Structure formats: structure tokens, C-alpha cells
């Protein structure tokens, strides 16, 4: 597989604290890679290392085929844009002025595409308004716009939905999906909002205690997530007898509800229950969520 970014046994130590512990990850080209982990798991540390803001204590990473310790890493970095924690924008400048500033930093010969980038992130109408007067969501989108200057092939976003209202979260999600589909930009995104992440990620990396626990594609995750049917009946004791006879796994939740871990014929089940004098009130198919999968991987306690 063609990887845009891969890390090999990356370690980062702050004094006695081991933030990253031999972390290896692989971000395929064209993916939206969801980076999942609890607070302090090492997500932001990894992003800082990949962005060149900090040096790894040991281990290496490869960005667009260039080693992080190599001479040509600067050229590879030219192909990436990032928003690390807070958006990096000049608060005393307008949205357009901020983008122009980044055009200059990149040494681009003209400001072509500036208006289009502002339109893409929904900031075309902000005029002379300074970034300090922007809402949190607008600042976040401006940070992404700055990261998009120079048409990067890789966009790295650290908790882009932090502090946003539901509308802002939806806007960011739609923007990222558009960037991925229309511009073929690979996106590495860390997020706490797992439900939101599950709506856009094509690949996942689960990290805990500075270690990569598992890397998995969205398809593999879907297959791995156990599907179940939540049934509501008038008597779960009767339901249990019927399911035992059918040889199906189940879990009784209350006197009237149970989860059935198999694909079963509802009409057959209803008929069998009727013979036991039990009524099937409802049956809904349920997926195990990304959140429960993550908790299953890293264990309970204080989770993301």
C-alpha cells in the first residue's frame, strides 16, 4: 500500500514522562485517518513530531517517502498543512490577510485561489472583520484555510471539532469530506468525538499510553463490530427459552428487553414466542458503536 505518512517505533520523552512509546502508524494515500485515544494518550505529541514542531527522542517517521531526519524533509513538509490544537492565525488580520500572509510564507508567486479557498471554508463574506472577532468555528475554518494554502496533499488536524457547536461540527465534517473527495487530500484527524469521527474516517488508529493498539480500516471495523437485534417482548423468560432452543447468543437487559447476537427471521421468532405465550413488541437492528469498540480495546475507566 502507498503510505503518505508512516512512523516506526517513534518515542518521545518529556523528562520522566513517556508520551510516545515505540508508536508505529501508517496513513494510506487518500484516506481520512481517524486517530483515536483518550486524553494524554499521545495524539497531539505525535502530530507535533510529524509537523516538525518537536524532535522524537528515538524512532523515525517517513513523510511522502522522505525520512523525518533526512535533508529533504523540508520539501516533503511543503506538501502538508496542519492545524495543531488551536488555529494558527493572526488575530489582528482579516481572513484574506491571513491567507495572503501564508502565501508569502510559502513564496507563492500570486494570490490565485485565495477567494476560492475562502469560499470553500465559508469565509468569503467576512470582509474587513478581524480574526479576533470571529467565532470559534470561523477561526477553526480559517485555520484550515491557512493549512490549505499551497494545495497540500496531506492535511493534519488535531481535534478540529473541539469547542464547536453542533452546526460547526457538521460544517467541518462536510468540508473535510469535500476536500478528501474533490481534491484527493489525505486527512489525518485526531478527535474525541468518536461518533463524529465514525461519519468520515476511512481508517482508524487506536492509541493508548503512547502505543498504537490497533490500526484498522473502516470496512474491517464494521465487520468486526458485532451486530445485534434489540427485541422488546412481553416476557424475556419465554424469549430466553426460545433463543436457547434456536442456539442463538443473547443478553437479557430487562424483564422486557434483550439483545440477540445473530441475524434471525423475525417472523420465525414471533411464531416461536407465540407458542410460549409471549408477544414480540418490537425488534430493532443495532450496530456496536466506534465508542464501544474503542472502550473494548483499551478497557473502561476514564475513556475518551
Amino acid at each position: 500500500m502507498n503510505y503518505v505518512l508512516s512512523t516506526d517505533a517513534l518515542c518521545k520523552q518529556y523528562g520522566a514522562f513517556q508520551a510516545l512509546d515505540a508508536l508505529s502508524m501508517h496513513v494510506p494515500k487518500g484516506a481520512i485517518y481517524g486517530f483515536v485515544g483518550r486524553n494524554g494518550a499521545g495524539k497531539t505529541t505525535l502530530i507535533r513530531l510529524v509537523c516538525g514542531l518537536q524532535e522524537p527522542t528515538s524512532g523515525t517517521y517517513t513523510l511522502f517517502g522522505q525520512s523525518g531526519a533526512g535533508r529533504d524533509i523540508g520539501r516533503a513538509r511543503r506538501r502538508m498543512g496542519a492545524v495543531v490544537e488551536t488555529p494558527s492565525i493572526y488575530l489582528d488580520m482579516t481572513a484574506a490577510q491571513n491567507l495572503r500572509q501564508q502565501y508569502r510564507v510559502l513564496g507563492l508567486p500570486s494570490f490565485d485561489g485565495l477567494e476560492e479557498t475562502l469560499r470553500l471554508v465559508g469565509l468569503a463574506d467576512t470582509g474587513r472583520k478581524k480574526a479576533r472577532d470571529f467565532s470559534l468555528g470561523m477561526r477553526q475554518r480559517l485555520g484550515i484555510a491557512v493549512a490549505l494554502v499551497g494545495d497540500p496533499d496531506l492535511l493534519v488536524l488535531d481535534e478540529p471539532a473541539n469547542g464547536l457547536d453542533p452546526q460547526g461540527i457538521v460544517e467541518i465534517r462536510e468540508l473535510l469530506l469535500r476536500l478528501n473527495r474533490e481534491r484527493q487530500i489525505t486527512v489525518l484527524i485526531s478527535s474525541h468525538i468518536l461518533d463524529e469521527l465514525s461519519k468520515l474516517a476511512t481508517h482508524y488508529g487506536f492509541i493508548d499510553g503512547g502505543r498504537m493498539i490497533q490500526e484498522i480500516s473502516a470496512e474491517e471495523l464494521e465487520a468486526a463490530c458485532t451486530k445485534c437485534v434489540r427485541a422488546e417482548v412481553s416476557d424475556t423468560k419465554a424469549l430466553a427459552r426460545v433463543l436457547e432452543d434456536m442456539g442463538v447468543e443473547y443478553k437479557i437487559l430487562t424483564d422486557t428487553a434483550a439483545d440477540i447476537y445473530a441475524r434471525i427471521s423475525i417472523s420465525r421468532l414471533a411464531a416461536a414466542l407465540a407458542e410460549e405465550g409471549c408477544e414480540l413488541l418490537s425488534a430493532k437492528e443495532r450496530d456496536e458503536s466506534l465508542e464501544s469498540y474503542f472502550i473494548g480495546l483499551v478497557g473502561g475507566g476514564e475513556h475518551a
Partner: protein
Amino acid sequence: MRKLLSANFSRLWRDKVFWIGMACIFGYGCWLVSTRHGNMLRFESFEPLDSRLMDGFAFAGGGAAIFVSLFLGTDYSDGTIRNKVIVGHKRSAIYWANWVTGVAAALLLAGAYLLAYCGLGVFLLDAPASPAAQTAAFFAIGLFALVAYVSLFTLLSMLLTKRSSSGMLCILLFWGLFIFSGMLQSRLDAPELLPQFAMVDGVEQVEMVPNPQYLQPGARRVCQFLMNLFPSGQTIELLFGNVVHLFRLPVYSAAFSAATTALGIFAFRKKDLK
């Protein structure tokens, strides 16, 4: 580095602190000339053009403390320094670009003073009293001292990530060095003997006694070295027109600038950015 300089100068052009500094220093130059011209008219005093010409370097040094710390501190407080690193600019290039911007701003501040002072002074003040060669030499010393100031403030501003901390430290350091150098100058200027008045048989007599503040040769050499080393000492020597080692001072400033910049680049390359 050309790209970074282009970005920095674009910011400098729209930096309010810089333009307020330019206006203040220009205004001071105009005020000084008009005050001295008033003295000429009222007291018929001799007010040569070159006697306060070097004030601009001391003022520009103070201006540089404020400007450099705020300009570079904004890159940290707004997080925009990350944008430069993420897209692959070398840290040494970022440091050099910031240093060059600081030097340019400080020279423009000094230039604003000279423009106001000389522009008005040529018409309103007396002709220069010192030889042109000496004025030119003093001018070169002032420029080198200004570069040394900027190097020191760039070092602090690039290593301290909090804009308020670096701003406060740069301003305090500027004044601290200025006061320290002023104290050194007063010790260096202390006379070897002091007159002591005594009444002998009802007659007042003056006797010259050793001054305890007078520096002995060893201590004098150390004090003079410190005066020469720090840009504050050099600008004080220029303000009083009392330059002891005319040709050494630019060398000291160049060494001071080189040392602080080398240390700054080394530490900035190792620094963990957030």
C-alpha cells in the same frame, strides 16, 4: 529565507506598534530641535547640530526592546510560528529572518529620529562642532550597538514563548542595562582627588584628598570593558561624546551580536514548539 522576509516585512508594514514608535521618535527629534532653537534665541547659547545627534540610537534601542518582543511574541501567542515550521522552513532561517526584520525596524526607528533632527536642525541649529570623521565614526558605533541590542532582544523573544513575559523582560533588561551602564560611567568619571574644606584658625582651607569612589586600574579596566561590551554602555558613551576606545566598540558589538545570535539559533533549533 526570502519568503520569510517577505512575510515579515509585510507584517512590519502594517504593525501599529512600529508606526507608533516611528511617530514618537520622529516627534522627539522635532521637539528637541525646537527646544534647542528656543535656547539659542533666548540665551544666545551655542547649540551645534552634532551634539545630540546620537540620541536616536539610545531611543531606537528602547524602541527595539518593545517592537522585537511584541512582533516575535505575536508569532508565539497567535501560534503562527507553527505555520512556518510545518511547511518546511528551517528553524535557522526563521531565526535569521526575524533578526533581519528586527534590525531593519530598529534602523528605521533611528532613521526617523535622524530625519526629524537633521531635517529641522540643519536650518535651526548651529553648524557642527566636531570633525565630520568623528561624527561618522560615532554613527558607525551607534549602528553596531543597535544591531547588538536587536540581537539580544531577538534571543530572548525567540526563546520565551509568552509574549507578555518576553516583552516585560526585554524592556526591563533595556532599562536595567542602561542604569547599570550609567552607574559604571559615573564611577569611571569619578575624580581621583576630591577637595576637602577645613577651617584652620578661622580661615577656610581646601585640601585635596583621595576619592574613595575612584577606581583603581584593575577595577577601571573591568568597568571600561563592561561599558564597551554592552550596547547600553556604548550608547551612553555616544550620548556624552566620551568614547574611549573608538575602534574597539564596533568589534565588541559585532562579537556581542554574533554570540547572542549563535546561542539563539542553537537553542531555538532544540526548542520544543507547541
